[in-house]
């Protein structure tokens, strides 16, 4: 076990902020441990990234069950294709890119079988048990559900995964300008929805 996995304490499952704070060198060290087949590196990756990965999958698929499957598929892929992890230059972007692809595949599979509405998906939750806040979070989630997938995804990547528009463009496979446009259109639409103009 190298220094990377020894130094970093294992975090709780909602350690999303660590995901954004971890430097590129630390990510590469973690991927190096994964490439060496270290089981503890896999656990550390889960504690660091599962929250953000699950969130992205949830915002893209609109289904907690499918988001869970996406997280599982991602980790199985990381474990089974560990040889290539050493060559990954930006592990954080790689994780988000693969997660997004898996989520898009999950949505395609679902659409082939039956179209499930995402209106009831809990995209957001309220901290604490205040009933009125929980209701507000449900309302906010319902508004997010009315956004196109690509716009919702851009908002998530920008605000919750800490990505720049250039990074979003790389992850999603579109030019930076398109990524920024999707974000702006999404925010504008949310504003109109909140004002009851749509």
């Amino acid at each position, binding site marked *: 076990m190298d220094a990377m996995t020894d130094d970093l304490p294992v975090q709780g*499952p*909602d350690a*999303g902020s660590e995901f*954004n704070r971890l430097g590129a060198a630390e990510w590469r060290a973690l991927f190096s441990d994964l490439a060496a*087949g270290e*089981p503890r590196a*896999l*656990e550390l990756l*889960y504690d660091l990234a*599962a*929250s953000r990965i*699950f*969130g992205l999958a*949830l*915002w893209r698929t609109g289904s*907690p069950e499918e*988001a*869970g499957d996406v*997280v*599982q598929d991602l*980790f*199985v892929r*990381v*474990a*089974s*294709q*560990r*040889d*290539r992890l050493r060559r990954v230059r930006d592990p*954080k*972007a790689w994780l988000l890119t693969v997660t997004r692809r898996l989520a898009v595949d999950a949505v395609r599979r679902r659409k082939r079988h039956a179209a499930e509405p995402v209106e009831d998906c*809990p*995209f*957001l*939750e*309220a*901290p604490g048990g205040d009933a009125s*806040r929980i209701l*507000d*979070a449900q309302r*906010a989630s319902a508004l*997010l559900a009315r956004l196109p997938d690509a716009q919702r995804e851009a*908002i*998530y990547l*920008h*605000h*919750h995964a*800490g*990505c*720049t*528009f*250039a*990074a979003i463009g790389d992850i999603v496979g579109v030019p930076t300008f398109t990524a920024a446009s999707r974000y702006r259109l999404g*925010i504008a639409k*949310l504003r109109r929805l909140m004002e009851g103009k749509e």
Partner: protein
Amino acid sequence: MSRDEKRHDPPFGEFSVPGPPEALRERVMQAAGAALERDPVPDRWRRVWESRAARLAWAVSVAGLLVAHAYITPRETAVRETASFNEEEITELARLPRIEPAALASVTLEPGAPEEEEDSL
């Protein structure tokens, strides 16, 4: 990934994105742990590089090219000699025409005055 742009306030900043369910961790670790115990799946290029079928195809292609190179000779050139000249004919063709002595009288050796060029307007 963060410093080159102005940060915007997140919409619904007071709420958070739900985390994965508790039970997911064990499920994921079990599946990933099993995958970790297996041999890693080689990537696409390594699969091609190590593929017996690809190597066989490569060897057959090279052998085919060698056979083609050795046995398939190019056809004779399309341009053929339709008739062969003999030396006498060539000499005859190359001989300058003779000038008849009678014709020489009409040839003046003095240079004639150059013709005046008409001025053009």
